[in-house]
């Protein structure tokens, strides 16, 4: 069964460092997403991406964040200068034209 894969599973970084989280969505899916979940809190929408551009972003997704689909398979989330409050589990998801979102296992980011 096709699945969304994310790397790394866990990354520890120093405050102020740049981080790139990588995702390989399901191959025939058209819409891509990043969500995050701070420990003990609910899952929050960050950004959606369609047709090679951001289609929607939340207020969390400020100038420190960017997304890219550099080739036909990868979908990345970059945090330019990490802050302590960026520590969270980051989930990538994808979907086809209709239907549910398929989530990856998540990338846990710890900012020290």
């Amino acid at each position, binding site marked *: 069964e096709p699945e969304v894969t994310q790397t790394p599973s866990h990354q520890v970084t120093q405050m102020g460092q740049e981080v790139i989280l990588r995702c390989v969505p399901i191959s025939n899916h058209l*819409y891509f*997403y990043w969500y995050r979940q701070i420990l003990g809190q*609910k899952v929050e*929408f960050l950004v959606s991406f369609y047709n090679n551009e951001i*289609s929607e972003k*939340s207020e969390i997704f400020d100038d420190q964040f960017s997304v890219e689909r550099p080739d036909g398979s990868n979908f990345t989330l970059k945090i330019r200068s990490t802050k302590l409050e960026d520590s969270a589990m980051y989930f990538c998801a994808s979907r086809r034209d209709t239907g*549910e*979102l398929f989530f990856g296992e*998540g990338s846990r980011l710890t900012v020290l």
Partner: protein
Amino acid sequence: AQSVTQPDIHITVSEGASLELRCNYSYGATPYLFWYVQSPGQGLQLLLKYFSGDTLVQGIKGFEAEFKRSQSSFNLRKPSVHWSDAAEYFCAVGVWETSGSRLTFGEGTQLTVNP
């Protein structure tokens, strides 16, 4: 904007007992509704979804949910809980538009199963 409320932060049931997790949503039109389950340190697994049609939907692991438009609810049920069902459950409402979409999640309900 859409929103989701899960009134119960934590529920404890005995193994073999029935379960109902509550979910209320707010959205102007008929939404797409989902229940996801998350085990500790794991990702989000889809239990079931409602898009249209029959308001009682069946999912994996013996779960079902009923969409009630008049109550803006989408409660999750299971007739007999197993110890392996202990996890966090998230209700979500989806708004699908031509250019994109987002899922809005509730706060989650932590389920504990006593032996």
